[in-house]
Each structure stands twice: as structure tokens, then as C-alpha cells.
């Protein structure tokens, strides 16, 4: 116990002494949180559209007015030449072409259904989906307001958004970004820190002392655990204070998840360091692991939309479970009752990874 305490105090002394280390641990994540939350934002701010009116009627002019009245739509082309419009689409001068067919007004007045064609640049798939939805909404609204016998009795849908009523995209992203940052710190710092002791040879000196294997490991992991916990809550404060993210759930449940999750990350860091001789090696492996985690975590793409193998892989990595539970706790106020499955997975991971790491880390080489 005394030895562990000595190691921990040594570790903190080293961390607080190094200005670079402090910057990496505390300033970088805060800045990243502030910047990433604004950058990693899929909200559509501007849609450029080309108007292709083959009808030239008063009703089609009314519909155009509806689009011009919407703040995010900006008219960049008005021509009947469909080929020219397609070129605009190709050259990114328009994101969408709205094509009104000949006889649009006549059909509507006579009560026939009429089809409006929309052509969207779908290189950015998620933006295309949003554009389609916005265009559909404006056209739907136009049908309901202006018209007409045809629409009567036709089913209409309305949506209500729960838990995130203002569709605040940041509320969705920030818990995820926070989790990634905590993961990077936990995993990378642990891996680098132990690899550093190997690289500068201090581990050889430590090995010829009464310090035991588990004491050395705990002396490394506990400071990182404390740093991870502090960092997470600083991030939560920033999220709540700067971005007005709600924190509905029980902070103690969140803390419990966080501690278990950090043990998983620290264990992976330990495992990486046991297999590397230098900080550079540790850095490369840690970087690779984090990349996989970030892309499969469901942070940038919903897990449900991944191909089957992606969903399976995603469920296999611990970060997915922690992102999901963090979002659920922060935004929905979910409790242990709803999240026990994620919790069990994380606990199993924590135990498994750490056992593996301790097995791999041997005090006597060979």
C-alpha cells in the first residue's frame, strides 16, 4: 500500500511538473471539445437549389415563393434546360434541382395527383437525406395549404421530437466526443507512460527493488484513472455550461459507468505497453486501436445503419456501449435498470482486458 502511494505521488509529481504533459492532458481535450463540437456538426445551414419550371403557371410560382421564403434555401438557377441544370448539380452550383412538370397546375386544379421531380447531389449521403426531407416538407406544406380536393382525406404525418426537442445536434455529439477524448487520454497516456519507463530504462532500476508487479501497475493506472475522471467531469461542465447540454440522469450512475469504462481503457493501454519497447511503438498501436474505436463506435454513423458485420463489430467494442449509455444517462435520464446490459458488457471487458494485460506484463523479461 505504501509503495503504491509512493508511486502515485511520484507519478503526479512528474505530470504536474511537465508543462507539455499538462497541456496534453487538460488543455488539448478542452480545446478539442470546444472545436470539435462545432465542427462535427451535420446540421444543414444552406441548400442551393435550381428551379426547373416546365409549367410556368401561377401555382408553380407560388411554390417557388414557398422555397424562397425558407431561410436555408437559396435559388442559384432558374432554367428549363434540364441538361444545364444537371451540369450545375455536377459543378456543385446547386445541391438540388426541383423540376415542376408540364401541366402541374392543370392536374392539381382538376384533382389529379401530380409528381414533382427532385434531383439531389448524393455524394454526401446524409446531407442528401436531409435535403430530401426539407424539400418534401415544403412541398407537403404547399399541398395542404393551397389545395384542393385531391388532398382531402389523404393521410398526413407530423413528427414530434422527444428528449432533444430543439433538435440540438450538439446534445447528441458532445457526449460522444467526450467519451472519445476520455478514451484517448486513458488509453494513450497509459500506454505511453509505461512505454516511457521502458524506453528511458527506469523500469530496469524499478525492477531491482522490492516493488512488486501489481504495485507498479496500480501505481501507473490509479493516477490515469483519476485524471480520466476529472477530465470527464470537466468536459460535462463545459457541455452544460457552454453548449447547454442537459444532464438529466443520475451523476453517480454516470460515474460508475465511467470508472468501469476507464478500467477497460487503462487495461488496453497496459496491454499495448506490455508489447512495446518504445513510446513510438506504443503510440502507433494505440493510435490504430483508437481509430477503429472511433469509426465503429456509432459516434459519426448510427450503428443501426452499418452493414451487418459492422453492427456486430460495433457491439464488440467497449466504446459503443459507453457512448450509448452516456447519451442515455445524460439526455434521457436512463438508470441502471435500462442500461444493465451495457454495464455487464463493460464489467466483463474490464476484467478480461486487465487479466490479459497483467498476464502479458511480466516483471522478469524472458
Amino acid at each position, binding site marked *: 500500500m505504501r509503495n503504491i502511494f*509512493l508511486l502515485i505521488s511520484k507519478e503526479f*509529481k512528474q505530470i504536474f*511538473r511537465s508543462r507539455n504533459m499538462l497541456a496534453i492532458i487538460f488543455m488539448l481535450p478542452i480545446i478539442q471539445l470546444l472545436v470539435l463540437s462545432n465542427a462535427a456538426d451535420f446540421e444543414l445551414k444552406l441548400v442551393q437549389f435550381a428551379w426547373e419550371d416546365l409549367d410556368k403557371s401561377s401555382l408553380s410560382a407560388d411554390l417557388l415563393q414557398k422555397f424562397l421564403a425558407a431561410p436555408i434555401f437559396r435559388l442559384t438557377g432558374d432554367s428549363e434546360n434540364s441538361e444545364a441544370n444537371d451540369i450545375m448539380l455536377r459543378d456543385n452550383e446547386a445541391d438540388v434541382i426541383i423540376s415542376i412538370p408540364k401541366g402541374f397546375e392543370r392536374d392539381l386544379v382538376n384533382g389529379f395527383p401530380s409528381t414533382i421531380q427532385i434531383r439531389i447531389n448524393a455524394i454526401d449521403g446524409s446531407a442528401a437525406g436531409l435535403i430530401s426531407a426539407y424539400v418534401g416538407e415544403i412541398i407537403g406544406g404547399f399541398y395542404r395549404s393551397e389545395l384542393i380536393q385531391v388532398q382531402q382525406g389523404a393521410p398526413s404525418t407530423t413528427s414530434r421530437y422527444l428528449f432533444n426537442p430543439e433538435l440540438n445536434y450538439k446534445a447528441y455529439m458532445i457526449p460522444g466526443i467526450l467519451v472519445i477524448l476520455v478514451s484517448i487520454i486513458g488509453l494513450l497516456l497509459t500506454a505511453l507512460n509505461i512505454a516511457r519507463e521502458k524506453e528511458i*530504462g527506469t523500469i*530496469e*532500476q*524499478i*525492477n*531491482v*527493488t522490492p516493488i512488486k508487479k501489481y504495485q507498479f501497475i496500480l501505481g501507473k493506472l490509479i493516477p490515469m484513472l483519476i485524471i480520466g475522471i476529472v477530465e470527464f467531469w470537466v468536459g460535462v461542465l463545459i457541455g452544460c455550461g457552454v453548449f447547454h447540454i442537459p444532464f438529466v440522469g443520475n451523476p453517480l450512475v454516470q460515474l460508475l459507468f465511467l470508472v468501469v469504462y476507464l478500467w477497460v481503457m487503462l487495461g488496453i493501454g497496459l496491454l499495448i505497453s506490455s508489447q512495446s519497447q518504445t513510446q513510438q511503438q506504443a503510440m502507433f498501436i494505440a493510435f490504430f486501436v483508437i481509430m477503429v474505436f472511433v469509426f465503429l463506435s456509432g459516434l459519426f454513423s448510427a450503428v443501426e445503419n452499418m452493414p451487418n458485420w459492422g453492427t456486430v463489430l460495433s457491439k464488440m467494442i467497449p466504446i459503443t456501449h459507453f457512448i450509448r449509455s452516456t447519451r442515455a444517462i445524460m439526455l434521457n435520464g436512463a438508470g441502471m435498470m435500462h442500461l444493465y446490459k451495457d454495464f455487464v458488457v463493460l464489467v466483463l471487458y474490464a476484467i478480461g482486458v486487465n487479466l490479459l494485460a497483467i498476464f502479458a506484463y511480466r516483471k522478469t523479461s524472458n
Partner: protein
Amino acid sequence: MQSFISAKNLSKSYGDTLALDDVSFQVYPNEIVGFIGPDGSGKSTLFQILTTLLIPDSGSATIAGFDTGRDFPKIRSSIGYMPGRFSLYPDLSVEENLRFFANIFGSSIEENYEMIKGVYTLLAPFAKRKAGALSGGMKQKLALCCALIHKPLVLFLDEPTTGVDAVSRTEFWDNLVQIRDGGIPIVVSTPYMDEATRCDRVAMIYGGKIMQMDTPEYIIANYQGSLLAIRTQERYLAKQLLSQIKGIDSVFTFGDAIHISLPERTEPIIDEIDAVLQRELSSTYSITEILPNFEDCFLQFMRQKSHE
């Protein structure tokens, strides 16, 4: 006398490379034993086995009666080890490093200050300086202090003077003698031949084997054959000429002279050397008989070994 360290038939290989080949020796209380050999001769491997960092493929070693394999926790808490490269925390100060290593052995600087007094007085002005910012000689003194601060039963120093200036090296050896006189046996390795004479006994190690182990005086006195030193301006030409003469063991450059080792000092061969040099060299030269130093002895052993 009862031996303090006893190694029996230690062997260790890394893949196909045999790093230690059946090494046995004893170290007695109150002596400095030096392991002298070129890089890659197996010194560090031997030290890692003795300090319980490596397990030998075969053989065993005991320190103060404890087996390096079975009793490694006891050995770890009772030896002082200075690894081959600087292994202290560069971002902690001199004092913090010392305190840390004292504390993890359950001791304190104050309790054992007597142990390090001789060395630490030189370091004291830099107590607040970070270890990484010290000069080479100071780093090495700090490492010695850290290895000593828990009052070990024996000191293991792996190439402690490598990369340290000549003055610091002399000071360092003075310190080692003091420590030995204080009752701590020292096992030290070095690639520097001139340091051999500061040891009480020397083991010459080459290719993973101990070629000979004895007092440096005995080793020098038992040099086989005799040595001639030839001084001339035309060293290169002279060396070429000399290596063609039969009956010479070896010719090698040593500082500003050429050393010739003869299996035996006889007048005919000296006359022949003189005649050849007289005929071929344009400038003056001198031939003197010299006493061998430790390096000559080491080189002779190495030659014999490679001829086997």
C-alpha cells in the same frame, strides 16, 4: 573464506547467440571484482542474471546465500544495482530521485546518509536540479547514491564509467574503494582496461566465457613472452615490415608506438628486427623493451582464445 556471491555454470543464449557460456566464479566479502571485456562479451547478461532480471538457461547463482531464481524478492531488497545506462527519472530532481529510491526500500535519506556522504557532498549543490539536466559525471554519482541509499549488502555496477570523463572516472573509483572499505563488496563491469588495476580481482570475459580471473598484478606478472615498443615517424611502413618477420606473435599500434609481442626474448630476433628497420626506414627509430600493461594481457588472452 566464505564466498559472498557464488555462480555455478551459468549459461544464457538469445536465439542462436550464446551470450554466456558456462560461467562460474566466486566473489568474497570486501573485494571489488571487475568484469572486463569488450562490448558484446556477455557482461550485461551476467549482471542481469545476478540482479534477478534474467533467468539463466542453466546454472545457478547465490548472493548472501539467496538463490537468484527462487529467492529473488529477498535479493531485490538487499542489493544495489546501477544499470548500464542512466535509469533515473530525468524529470525529478536529484533529491526527489534519491528520496524516491530510499522510500521504496522502506528507508530514508536521513537514516542512511552516512552511506552516501562521500559521494553526495559533491552532488549537494545540485540537489534541486532535475536529474536529466546533470552532466555525465554527476548523473553517474547520483545513480551510485540511489543504488547505495538503502544500505545494500552488495553493489552491482554495470559499466558505470562509460561515457564519463577521465577526472570523474578517477573520482568515481576513489568512491568505490571507500565503499568497499565500508564493508560492501562491489561487482563492476567496464570496457576500460586501465580501470582493471583499480579492482581487487579481475575477470577477463570474452565471447561469453571467463578467460581468467585473478588479481590484476598476478595477471600482468604472468604475461607470456616479452613486449617491445618501437617508436618511429614511419609507423605504417614499420608495421608492414614487422608483420613479415617470422617468430613474432603480433604487431599492433599502441598510442604513438608499435608494440611487438614476442613469445620469448632472444637476441637473434631483436637483431633481425633492428636490421630490417635499419635497412628500410629513412628516419630514426628506437626499440625498447617495456613492461606489459593490462591491455596487453587482455589482448594476448583474446588471441589465444581465438586461435583455439
